[in-house]
């Protein structure tokens, strides 16, 4: 009986060992796999964070650049409004000049300048509606003739123009003209004028964005 008993005990012992090994291996594999999964999970979490950071930074850079651009635009608009205001004030100031004594002298200068550019024998001066300053046409003729070497006759046109001031100088036949109205002179010198206004208004003001 003791022989049989020892065989049975041996079988039990072996089966216990095998049973333990199977369970132990399964548990060990589980631990390894779970650890691996946790690592992968953390890596994925870190990757998601990094991706969010990159996206956020790129977005931030883009939006900062847009904000800077918008700010420059806003400052330029503010400056532009001030420049426009100065231009309007200047024209307003010139408009009042046609009632002053010096206005006729100024028109004489504009007429001589325009007539000299035209260099024709007969020149007509067109004045703005509602303005009839006393112009020394003889003086104008003489000065144009002196500048061009062409004997020039100057007359006042009955036609009137729409302008705040100045004079439109044209050849009698109407084929050539020099527009010396305030508006035309302003438009021709706009670029220079804007630079001039900017240099006066904005010099040493504000810090760059």
């Amino acid at each position, binding site marked *: 009986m003791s022989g049989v008993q020892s065989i*049975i005990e041996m079988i039990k012992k*072996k*089966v216990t060992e095998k049973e333990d090994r199977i369970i132990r291996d399964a548990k060990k594999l589980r631990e390894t796999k*779970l650890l691996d999964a946790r690592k992968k999970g953390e890596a994925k979490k870190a990757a998601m964070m990094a991706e969010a950071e990159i996206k956020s930074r790129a977005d931030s850079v883009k939006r900062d650049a847009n904000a800077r651009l918008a700010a420059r635009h806003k400052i330029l608009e503010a400056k532009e409004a001030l420049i426009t205001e100065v231009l309007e004030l*200047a024209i307003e100031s010139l408009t009042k000049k046609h009632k002053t004594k010096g206005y006729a002298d100024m028109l004489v*200068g504009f007429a001589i300048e325009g007539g000299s550019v035209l260099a024709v024998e007969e020149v007509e001066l067109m004045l703005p509606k509602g303005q009839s300053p006393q112009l020394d046409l003889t003086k104008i003729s003489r000065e144009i003739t002196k500048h061009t070497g062409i004997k020039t006759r100057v007359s006042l046109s009955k036609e009137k123009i729409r302008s705040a001031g100045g004079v439109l100088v044209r050849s009698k036949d109407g084929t050539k003209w020099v527009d010396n109205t305030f508006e035309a002179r302003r438009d021709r010198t706009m670029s220079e*004028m804007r630079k*001039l206004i900017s240099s006066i*208004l904005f010099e040493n003001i504000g810090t760059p*964005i």
Partner: protein
Amino acid sequence: MPEAQYIDLIRKAEEAAEDRIRAAEDSARETRKQTEIDIKKIMKRTEAKGKKAAEVRLNENEAKRAARERKFQKKVDRIIAQIQEASKDRKPAAVHAVVEMLLGGE
């Protein structure tokens, strides 16, 4: 005890052993199955955590950026106010210069 009875005892012991091994293998199989389920849960949970953390980071960065932009806007408004204020005294001179330019040569 007769020999047949001994053999029967050993056979029963062997059968019991086989049953225990089968049970252990079933248990191991169950463990593996449960492990796969747990792995999926871990991945899902960490992904959700990652998503949440990324969202928090994005919100933090956006808040910082918005604060930076507000500060910047204040600076811009200050510059504009400075320009407008300083130009008040300079405007008459600018108007005069423009008038002179229009009246004088181009």
